[in-house]
């Protein structure tokens, strides 16, 4: 019975995510007016900002899950960290691709060593390393502790990386005038803000839908492992 209820709740979450995403798409592609400076290209922002924020949320969850696992040693915390890391890597990679596509028309190049872009790329490297570390350790419990340590260190390192990369860019060259994520907020159209808000809600719902599914997948794998062990014993 409980399982049916969980399934139902997940179905509702998925449906809500779908609806929010569709409305968000409509709002950001049709209703929101083109940007005064950048024109229609600026619509990429409605993807870019929600996806990077979701990625950060993901890494925060990795941090929480890792800390809880090291403290309480409960498998579910490790599962949370692992699931969040996987989806976080997906959203970070997508953010970099969006940024690159946005950069071409606004900066004239696919890639520039802008502070934020660089930081995002480093985040991707750290958490890809996290996933590789997990996959390369055979023993489940050891993999979980090792990954938890990396999940904590990686998250604590983010502010330091942010500072260093930011100083590096600002000390060496003036910050670029057209920052994709620094729109001129003072004269922003209300429809733009609404589009951004709806897209963000859509991303969040979708994120939690994916996360719950990935988490349940891990739980089932864990149960299969336990049952096989039981039978072997």
């Amino acid at each position, binding site marked *: 019975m409980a399982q049916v209820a969980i399934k139902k709740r997940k179905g509702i979450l998925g449906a809500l995510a779908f609806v929010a995403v569709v409305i968000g*798409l409509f709002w950001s592609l049709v209703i929101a007016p083109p940007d005064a400076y950048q024109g229609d290209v600026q619509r*990429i922002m409605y993807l870019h900002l929600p996806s990077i924020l979701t990625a950060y949320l993901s890494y925060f969850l990795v941090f929480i899950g890792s800390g809880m696992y090291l403290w309480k040693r409960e498998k579910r915390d490790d599962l949370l960290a692992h699931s969040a890391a996987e989806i976080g890597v*997906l959203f970070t990679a*997508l953010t970099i691709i*969006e940024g690159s*596509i946005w950069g071409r028309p606004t900066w004239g190049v696919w890639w520039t060593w802008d502070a934020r872009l660089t930081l995002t790329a480093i985040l991707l490297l750290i958490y890809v390393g996290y996933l590789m570390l997990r996959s390369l350790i055979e023993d489940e419990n050891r993999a979980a502790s090792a990954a938890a340590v990396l999940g904590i260190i990686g998250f604590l390192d983010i502010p330091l990386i942010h500072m260093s990369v930011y100083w590096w860019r600002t000390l060496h060259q003036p910050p670029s005038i057209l920052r994709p994520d620094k729109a001129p907020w003072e004269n922003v159209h209300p429809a733009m803000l609404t589009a951004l808000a709806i897209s963000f809600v859509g991303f969040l719902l979708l994120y939690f839908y994916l996360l719950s*599914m990935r988490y349940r997948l891990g739980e*089932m794998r864990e149960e*299969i492992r336990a049952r096989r062990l039981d039978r072997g014993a």
Partner: protein
Amino acid sequence: MSAWGFVSLAYGIVWGSILVYLILLKRRYASTAADLDALRSTEATSSDAKK
């Protein structure tokens, strides 16, 4: 490429990849659930046999 070209490229790649991830995740989910069910049912029958 026009402005809309870049926009559709970005939206296409992002939603395409998320969709691919979702489909892969559903597949993994379905096959694992099937494995688990199979394991549960054989366990039930073997424990019946013991009785």
